[in-house]
């Protein structure tokens, strides 16, 4: 079977610093990485392929600037068979509607797909909307928050889906799309052989011209949503601070806590 894994290149958010003066993001020296949650999608796709051992293949797909080739390279060094980069200036500013649209078009061009495996969400945009979006454009069923997947050679796939009250067991016909959570697998590390392969392998770059897409559906133009304002979250309450450094101060502070709780009718 043919498994496509859409992966996104994101800034390393834990390294993102905000400039307290201007309230803007300090991008200098922030590394671009594969969305950490997409590593789980790659891993489970590789496991399905290896388990089946029937010539199944895994293809990594990313949409992003030319530098996003590195993300495909990383997927290949983990053991993915091949990759595609979708890159075009016309795609800049795409929201999840337009991103899903283009990725779906790219998956159609890849063709003969059986399973699309997405990460739960990307750590930068953090919407989790692109997986279901791709499925809707391709008219595939989608199962989200998948923590376990089995794809026997005959019959439907068996899935565990995490929901608020517990775990659903699902049966799903292929072709289909899933988004996966961390619990599904432990991502393997890139191998030396994989790294060598990733340097040699040809990664096709598709622009809008190569895809069957309508121009007015691309990039900012094709995006129904618009960002109108960006600002820093304001957090401020008047805090009654009590030093509690020695036994006496601790006694006083603890008494104050009890008084506070009593006044607020919390005890």
């Amino acid at each position: 079977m043919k498994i496509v894994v859409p992966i996104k290149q994101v800034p390393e958010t834990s390294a993102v610093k905000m400039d307290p003066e201007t309230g803007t993001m300090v991008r200098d020296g922030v590394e671009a990485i594969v969305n950490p949650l997409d590593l789980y999608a790659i891993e489970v796709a590789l496991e399905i392929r290896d388990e089946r051992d029937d010539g199944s293949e895994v293809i990594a797909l990313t949409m992003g600037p030319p530098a996003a080739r590195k993300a495909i390279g990383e997927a290949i060094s983990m053991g993915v068979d091949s990759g595609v980069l979708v890159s075009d200036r016309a795609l800049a500013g795409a929201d999840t509607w337009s991103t899903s649209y283009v990725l779906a078009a790219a998956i159609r061009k890849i063709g003969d797909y059986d399973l699309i495996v997405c990460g739960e969400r990307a750590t930068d945009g953090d919407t989790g909307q692109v997986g279901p979006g791709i499925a809707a454009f391709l008219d595939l069923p989608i199962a989200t928050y998948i923590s376990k997947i089995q794809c026997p050679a005959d019959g439907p796939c068996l899935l565990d889906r995490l929901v608020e009250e517990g775990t659903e067991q699902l049966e799903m016909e292929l072709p289909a799309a899933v988004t996966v959570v961390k619990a599904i697998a432990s991502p393997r590390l890139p191998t030396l052989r994989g790294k060598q392969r990733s340097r040699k392998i040809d990664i096709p770059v598709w622009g809008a011209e190569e895809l069957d897409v309508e121009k007015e559906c691309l990039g900012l133009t094709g995006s129904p949503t618009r960002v109108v304002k960006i600002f820093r979250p304001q957090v401020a309450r008047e805090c009654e601070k009590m030093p509690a450094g020695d036994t006496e101060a601790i006694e006083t502070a603890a008494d104050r806590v009890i008084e506070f709780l009593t006044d607020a009718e919390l005890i």
Partner: protein
Amino acid sequence: MTQDPNNKKHSGVWILAEQTNGRIGRISHELLTRGRALADKLQTDLTAMVFGCDIPDDDLQDLIVCGADRIIAMEAPELTTFLVEPYAACAAKLIDEYRPEILLAGATSTGRTLMPYLAIKIHAGLTADCTELDIEPETNNLLQTRPAIGGNILATIKTPVHRPQMATVRPHSTRPAEPKDGRTGEIVRLEAPSELLSSRVKRVGFTPSSDEMNIQDAETVVCAGRGIKRGDNIAMISELADLLDGAVGASRDVVDRGWMSYPHQIGLSGKTVTPKLYIGVGVSGSIQHIAGMGTSDHIIAINNDPDAQIFHIAELGLIGDLFEIVPVITKKLKEATSKNG
């Protein structure tokens, strides 16, 4: 695009009410709070759309008493539990017929799956995980505010042209609507058209989670931060939480270290809680953590760093060593509560 092909205007605010085993859950009442405020600003009606099978009248009536003007319940055995294809097909049909201008759903496992699928099918814009919603006075557009870039910023987003304007709303980011005497409304029960009910996904089983108290339902949450230093010290936090009839929460650092499990995590990448009382013990108060607890009614913090961020949002801050402070509070609480009976 659903952009007035028949020149029929989009109007009205809609919410997706969710049911489990036929009962309407808390998120639906939170959406009523949100939806009612928007509908009042727009001087329009609030409709709750719900899918399921044999939903009791009382539950639908309750949505009206809590703020909805109209309920549209579409029912069939195939809609008993959430399945994306039939839910999306039925929702698309209702939207096409009634043409709401705004559609809100909870950012739950259901809402976060149905809404993005549906938005594509009906060519609408969708904003995920909103924490604030408002109406832009000049245009009557929906203003949708959500955290982005790891909670470092908030972004306000709008959908100028496409309708309905769709948003998912973070659970527990607002209070559930309360019943109001004398409210009336209309209940429309529709049988789901059979041609919309096919699904390539089947639900064949369900295992309920055996978790202890859900931190989102607790009125008091005592949250352990990395300052507790070792997993064993959770016991001290649990004791305090028990005395207050509360649940134990954790910062991400505590979960990453394996001291507590992920369902306890509070914050941007964990749960949002809005308890009456939050007590942070050895929690620094990072922006991502505050994203999940900043709207608690009362906040108390214990931290030995007088400059810790958490003191910016706490009402009462104890500056000192938590290992010395917590046992004294626990002792005094025991005395106080035994006195009260």
